[in-house]
Structure formats: structure tokens, C-alpha cells
């Protein structure tokens, strides 16, 4: 059983559709062999993660595609960029870095990609429809697309995403196929854990540690879970584990019931996540204790949605208006699209008055706006909490948006419970 290519795919591989497509198809075909796929299949959309991490080799790769005349074959959105192109100067980013990062970003635009620059593309332009076959990169976006939207993608790595976009093809494999989308593990959420302001990222962290890359069916989540809650859950689960899809029974579209989520599978195991497991996740992610001094707050990993901005403004307004001001740098990462809504809504005054610094397009781990010397950071994100110790060299406190605001005012880690 080898890989069978259609006539058109063979033409791509032989360079008849240009050298960029030849290079991209050779990567796609090699990956099909790696996965044991017997054929390729078309995709209708792509989301590129390879544009987020600026490295000299990533620049070389994309500039080679541009030089070879590459153009994307399907509508292709772009993940967070390595630079806030609007505010980098004010944020203290170096000129050399800004120049290199801009060149990198320009190369993706030259390939015909759409400048969405967000790691939460599902809350912006061109969210895929139910059942649509797509090729997405960015682990949090992948888990959201599969789980919450019911679109179909594997966890595409950097460069495979752009190769899929240039060819419009992926291996027929993995989560593109019905049989691999059915749950193999059941996760029962038990106890009075849902009231915790950081419940969803903590649940995601606990989930990723336990299920690895399996597809879990979560039973016991309340029907009030918002899209932002599910985003936080998925982002954390795709950091501590390799979760590319989950079912939340009664909430996500392929799981109207546990039976539907399992689709005839007998689960290999049933796991309980209750107060004890949530506590363990909390201890795992909080390397800063209550009362310890803070140097900065980072929200927006993944990018803050308009609704999360509204909750942030409400949390600020819950404190005394005149004195409510952050004592530490308070960074919020978001997309230009969400920010445009904020700017038009009247929330901007509240945020500005509090001292919020909005950072557009980029990622706290790629564009270094968190000042050097910062060693204690609070965040609402399980993903940020997981990666910040290694990527930023900081200790972390995880809390809800309200706790982040309270802590920022006090200049130390404060809890609401």
C-alpha cells in the first residue's frame, strides 16, 4: 500500500504547477507516507501557524516559497504575528527585530494570505463551517475548530500548514475522517468545581495531562459554558497534552449525547476529574503563592475576545473608580478585529483609565513586550501559565480575569475566594 496521487497531484509533484507548489507537494506527499495515508484530499481553507515564530530558518523557508512564485490555493488566514506592527516602537521592541519580523510577515502576504494575525481565528474572520475540511495550525485553534465548530483538521505543524495552503491538499488521515473523531476516553467532571474562576483552564490542564492525544468525551460540563470557556479549556489541554479534539456532551456539535460522542466505540478508560484533580492542576500551574509580589499581568493567550474585554472592563468597574489603577504593567494581547470592536464600544476608556496596554496581532512569547527583569506574572490562561516559565523565565499565578484585576491593583497575587 503506497500513496496514490491523482493526475493533478502528480502534476504538482512534478513541478508542472510551479516550483513552489512542487516543493509544497513534496512535503505533503512525504507527510502522507509518514502518516500511512493512501491518498490525499482537498481542503477548503487553511490557517497558518508558521508565521508566528520568527526564526532565521522559518524566514528562509517562506522567502524560498515567495521566490519560487508561490500563491495559496485556498482562503488562508494567518496566526498571531511575531510583531505588533502598529505599536512596536512604543512597546520598546528593538528596530532590528522589528525589521526582520516585518520582512517575515510581508512574505506571508506575498503568498496571498489574509492578514488576520490572530491565534483565535475562530472568533474572527472566516471561521469554518460545521463539517468543513480545513488545514489549521496553532494547537489551540485546532482543538477549537474540531471540537466547538465541528470543522475537520489535524494538528498541522509549522510549514505543513503553508504547504497544504499552496497545494490545497492534505493526507486523507486522522481527524479528517469520521472514525477518528469518535471519543475513545470518557472524562467525568464531578464535584462543586465549576464555580472556580479559573475552572476551565485548570480542567484543560488536567485533561491534557491525562488523555495525551486521545479524543475525550467530557461529561458533566454545564450547558452555560461559553465559547470563551471552551477556548480556555482547549488551549490548556493542547499545552499540557496533545489534545486536538474533545467532545463536551450536550455542548459541542458532535456530542448531543455520550453515545453519539463515542459513535459505537467502547471507551478504553473512564477518568474522573473532580476537586482533587483540579487542585493538583492549580498547584502545578501556580508557581507564585497568594500574597507574593507581581511584576506584570498578561491576558489574551489566546487573543482576548470582545466578550472577555467586556468582562475585564466590568471587573475594573467593580472596584472604586478613581483609585482603580494597575500598579504593574498590564498587557492584553488581542486581534485588530476584536480591538476594533472595543474601540467602537466605549470600553476603551475604562481600560485605558486602568492602565491596560493593548498589544495587537502578536503573542507574548514571540514579541518581547514583557519587560526584561519581570519575574512574576499573573495570567488567566492555562496555556500562558504552562509556557511562561520556560519562554519568559518567570513564575506564574493563574486566576480569573477578576483576580487578575484585583492582583494588579494590589501589586501582589490576590484571590477572590
Amino acid at each position, binding site marked *: 500500500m503506497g500513496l496514490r496521487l491523482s493526475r493533478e497531484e502528480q502534476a504538482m509533484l512534478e513541478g508542472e504547477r510551479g516550483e513552489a507548489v512542487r516543493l509544497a507537494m513534496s512535503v505533503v506527499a*512525504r507527510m502522507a507516507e509518514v*502518516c500511512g495515508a493512501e491518498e490525499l484530499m482537498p481542503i477548503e481553507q487553511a490557517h497558518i501557524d508558521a508565521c508566528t515564530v520568527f526564526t532565521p*530558518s522559518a524566514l528562509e523557508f517562506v522567502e524560498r516559497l515567495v521566490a519560487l512564485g508561490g500563491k495559496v490555493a485556498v482562503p488562508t488566514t494567518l496566526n498571531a504575528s511575531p510583531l505588533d506592527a502598529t505599536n512596536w516602537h512604543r512597546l520598546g521592541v528593538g528596530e532590528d527585530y522589528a525589521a526582520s519580523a516585518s520582512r517575515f510577515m510581508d512574505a506571508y502576504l506575498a503568498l496571498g494570505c489574509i492578514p488576520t494575525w490572530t491565534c483565535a481565528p475562530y472568533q474572527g474572520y472566516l471561521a469554518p463551517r460545521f463539517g468543513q475540511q480545513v488545514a489549521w495550525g496553532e494547537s489551540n485553534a485546532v482543538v477549537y475548530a474540531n471540537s466547538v465548530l465541528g470543522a475537520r483538521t489535524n494538528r498541522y505543524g509549522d510549514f505543513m500548514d503553508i504547504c497544504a495552503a499552496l497545494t490545497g491538499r492534505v493526507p486523507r488521515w486522522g481527524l479528517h475522517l469520521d472514525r477518528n473523531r469518535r471519543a475513545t476516553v470518557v472524562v467525568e467532571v464531578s464535584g462543586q468545581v465549576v464555580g472556580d474562576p479559573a475552572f476551565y483552564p485548570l480542567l484543560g490542564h488536567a485533561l491534557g495531562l491525562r488523555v495525551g492525544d486521545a479524543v475525550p468525551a467530557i461529561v458533566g460540563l454545564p450547558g452555560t459554558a461559553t465559547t470563551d470557556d471552551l477556548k480556555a479549556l482547549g488551549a490548556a489541554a493542547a499545552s499540557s*497534552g*496533545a489534545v486536538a479534539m474533545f467532545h463536551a456532551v450536550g455542548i459541542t456539535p458532535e456530542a448531543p449525547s455520550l453515545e453519539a460522542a463515542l459513535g459505537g466505540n467502547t471507551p478504553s478508560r473512564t477518568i474522573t476529574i473532580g476537586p482533587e484533580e483540579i487542585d493538583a492542576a492549580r498547584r502545578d500551574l501556580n508557581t507564585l503563592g497568594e500574597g507574593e509580589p507581581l511584576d506584570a499581568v498578561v491576558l489574551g493567550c489566546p487573543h482576548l475576545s470582545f466578550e472577555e474585554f467586556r468582562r475585564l472592563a466590568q471587573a475594573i468597574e467593580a472596584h472604586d473608580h478613581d483609585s482603580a489603577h494597575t500598579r504593574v504593567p498590564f498587557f492584553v494581547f488581542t486581534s485588530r478585529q476584536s480591538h476594533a470592536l472595543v474601540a467602537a464600544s466605549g470600553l476603551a476608556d475604562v481600560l485605558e483609565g486602568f492602565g491596560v496596554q493593548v498589544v495587537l496581532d502578536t503573542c507574548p512569547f514571540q514579541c518581547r513586550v514583557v519587560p526584561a527583569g519581570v519575574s512574576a506574572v499573573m495570567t488567566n490562561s492555562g496555556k500562558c501559565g504552562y509556557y511562561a516559565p520556560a519562554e519568559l523565565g518567570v513564575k506564574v499565578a493563574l486566576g480569573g480575569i477578576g483576580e487578575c484585576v484585583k492582583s494588579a491593583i494590589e501589586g501582589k497575587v490576590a484571590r477572590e475566594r
Partner: protein
Amino acid sequence: MKARLEGRAVVAGSAVGRVVVARKPLSLWGGLDPATGRIADPHHDRFGEGVAGRIFAFPTGKGSSTASAVLLECVRLGTAPAAIINSSLDPIIALGAIVAGELYGKAPPVVVVSEEAFASLADGDQVAISPDGTVEITRGEGG
């Protein structure tokens, strides 16, 4: 002692060296520093260990889909492992090696062995990987 493991050559190639064995999956992004070739994830069991030029055995990848970009940059800088042994296929790791082959004409071989075979690897074993996926282990005798 000598042993022979039959693996699958996901990215075929030859390599010889000492093996660094990790028991936990690793996200290369945030978990492997391209500048030094050291394990940078403080949650990981081999935190701080250098894998540049060595055979790096870890169960599988996880987390960020940027692992391929990290591996590519390691190849550019010469800090990549000489070869990778996993017990469960992570296509994103294979992808990094394949793109390195396209861009720089060199790719660290990636071999997937059974969980049982993986468990038989011990840190410091001398390992030889062949293009067909065979992993030969030499242990002890003052080595």
C-alpha cells in the same frame, strides 16, 4: 550487552551516538532551546539536559504545533539531536526533519519503536540507527 530493536524509519537515515532517554512527552516549542540544544521545559524529566548531537529518545511530542519550526532551527544552528527515537508517532516532529531535508539537505533520522522496545532503552546506551529503522544498542563493558 547488545540488543537490536526493529523500528519504523519515519524519516530514514543513519546515526550513531549515546542516547538521552526521557520518560515524558515533550513539546519542542518551549521545551527545547535551539540556541543551546538543551531541554528547557521545567515540567519535563530531563530539564536542563543537552541533546545536541546525541540520540534523543522521548515517548512522543505534544503541545504546540511549532515543534517543526524549532527542530528546523536546531538543524540550521547545528544543535539538533543526531537522531530521534519515539514510541508513538508525532507527525509534527517528522515534519521538522522533512523540511530540514528540503531546506538544508540534512535531516535528523526519526525512528518509532514499540513501547516495549522504548522501555528497554537506558540512558547512556550506545545506539546505532540504520536507514531501515533498526536500532542497535550496545551497553556496558566500560562504555
